[in-house]
């Protein structure tokens, strides 16, 4: 639909073994709160390759949500750049940005992701519908995704008839339905009990391993942090550390940020 987004998606990243999907350069976001100036995100530069499974970690107020909003093109930086598949988001007009999000980014929010009047299946199909995917393809793909998140039998239920964990799994399925370059999830487990949280993480990790889906999620839950392959820690809006771990060892081999 959005030719600008599509053509940039096809642009070569320059890397041979890994494709760069996301890059930020000296990202700044300040808020003016009365006389007070809040530096919610300061000088953040980092890159995400296709297939990464990254947690943005930090205490409440450390700037996780602000950063994810910038990465998803929902908010504009005060300074610096966000490039997704080579496209600088600040170069896009408001309406182009909506289309860019539709085709390139999947979103999972903390809660209330779903349209209450639509069934689980219709919610999953929603972004495909906006993309203009035809009905039979929508049905095929929503079935596939609902199965992947373990909700095939709940397909025709409305969100109010689903548990919080089930709702978040539907949200993950919806985020994937539009075949985005990556999925942004802002504290997807914050409202879930530990069993549901762990089930959701299982699903995300499996999708990451099997389909190569790139996930970028924020959290301050230690059990969730432990499941990540890469942990970016924010302190007062700055990157404090950026750790990559071996997928097999849930260890804490700390590497200094580049």
């Amino acid at each position: 639909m959005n030719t600008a987004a599509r053509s940039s998606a096809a642009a070569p990243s320059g890397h041979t073994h890994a494709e760069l999907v996301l890059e930020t350069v000296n990202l700044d976001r300040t808020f003016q709160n009365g006389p007070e100036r809040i530096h919610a995100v300061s000088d953040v530069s980092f890159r995400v390759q296709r297939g990464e499974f990254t947690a943005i970690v930090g205490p409440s107020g450390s700037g996780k949500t602000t950063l994810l909003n910038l990465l998803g093109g929902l908010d504009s930086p005060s300074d610096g750049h966000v490039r997704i598949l080579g496209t600088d988001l600040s170069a896009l007009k408001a309406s182009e940005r909506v289309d860019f999000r539709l085709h390139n980014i999947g979103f999972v929010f903390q809660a209330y992701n779903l349209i209450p009047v639509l069934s689980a299946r219709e919610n999953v199909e929603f972004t495909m519908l906006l993309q203009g995917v035809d009905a039979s393809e929508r049905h095929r793909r929503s079935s596939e995704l609902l199965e992947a998140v373990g909700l095939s039998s709940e397909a025709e239920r409305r969100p109010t008839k689903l548990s919080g964990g089930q709702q978040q799994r539907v949200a993950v399925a919806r985020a994937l339905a539009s075949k985005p370059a990556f999925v942004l999830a802002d504290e997807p487990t914050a409202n879930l009990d530990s069993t549901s949280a762990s089930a959701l993480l299982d699903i995300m990790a499996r999708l990451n391993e099997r389909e190569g889906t790139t996930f970028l999620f924020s959290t301050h839950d230690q059990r969730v942090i432990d499941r990540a392959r890469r942990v970016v820690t924010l302190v007062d809006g700055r990157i404090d550390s950026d750790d990559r771990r071996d997928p097999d060892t849930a260890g804490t081999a700390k590497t200094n940020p580049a």
Partner: protein
Amino acid sequence: MLLRLAWRNLWRNPRRTLITAASVFFAVVLATFMSSVQEGVWDNMIDNLVSLQTGQLRLERANYREEQVLDNGFEAQDALLADLRSIDGITGVHPRLEGVVLASHTRYTTADNTTPDSTARDALAEAPAAARTPGDRTPAVRAEARTREDRTRIGLIQGLDAKALALRVDRLVAGRMPDLSADVDKTQPQGASPEGQLDAAQARGARRTGQALLGKELAEYLRADLGDTVVLLGQGYRGAIAAQLVVVLGLVDLGNPELNRATIYLPLADAQRLFAASGLWTGVVLEPEPYSNLDALSAEVRRVASAYAPLDQLEADAALWASPTWADMLPEIQQAREADEGGSILVLIILYLLIGFGILGTVLMMTLERRYEFGVLVAVGMRRSRLAAMVLLEGLSVSLIGAVVGLAASIPLIHYMAANPIPLEGSLAETYEQYGFDPVFAFSTAPDIFWRQFITVALIAMVVSAYPLYRIGKLEPVEAMRAG
């Protein structure tokens, strides 16, 4: 899908949707009733005036409206009549002859069988002395007791064809309708009435007594009872003298005091004889189908007439003809109606303001309480324009459901009321009659009463949705979702 989504969203809060739709429903029912009664009462009055006086549409000489005299009439032409009748949308054609006369009636009262009043006594005293011959008293006294009373008043003659006359039978309050079968007068020459024949025609006319229906107040003023003879005097065609005796066959109540004081109905042939104008019409009244476009018909009538010459000595020419509609002929009535309707538009505006705010409240609530949800929708890639279309559809649906159900209720109800109008009673009825209205609550079923309401509600819903749409146009997902 957008439609399905909008529809389901409507029923998220069924009570609110129903209350809003119900307010639109009542407003539409109220507005249609109001308009229908107003239009109905006016239509009724205009119908009354129009059917008894001008007709909806009329063909006449171009100079007739300016100066309504016989000399501006035109020759009776059957071919013209046939052509007019064949116009699409014309259901009847009625030639007529109109003119002005003085109507006089002389009444004799006998002193001994009427209450002796001062006039009678004075008359007795003034009786000529020669009548009082001694030795022959009794007949003289009788002669003296008989009092003569002359009354004269202006009468507006309408010479009507048989059908038009028959249509007025429901106006008859006493007596009977003229017997038209007896009136087929083969001695009348057809065609123009050259000056040379005037005397003969007039002589015949004087010999024959015509048949007349009088407005009830005219008859009252003239003190003419059924069966009495009234003298009609005036100016005939091209300077001839119009003089004719007519028998008061019946009295008509035309629902309007002005008409009742002056109208005299004659069969067309009697009117032609009276005015020495056989073969002359002053106009042809055309009956259109209900709710026709009169202006279009008027143009068509003139076009048809353009093939005919009004008089032998004139050329066929459209400029010689005029085809005024009732509104052209009764401009003051049209103005009064517009003034009255202007007043009630104010009431309608207030009514619509009320429902406008009702719809606004609902649409605002629908928008504000779903800010978070809208934020999610825009975040995941729904364009604001599409979101706005969805919300507009929701607002329109609530309103139009109310409007459609309202019309579904009011259309049959108003048609029923139109078929069975409510009669008025007491002083209200008298007032109505005085102003020429039928004393009934008449309802109009003109289609535009209904679709106008529908359009109005749709427009209001659109206007009222403008603010929420503006909000959606500016919606920033981050803010919307932070505000929750």
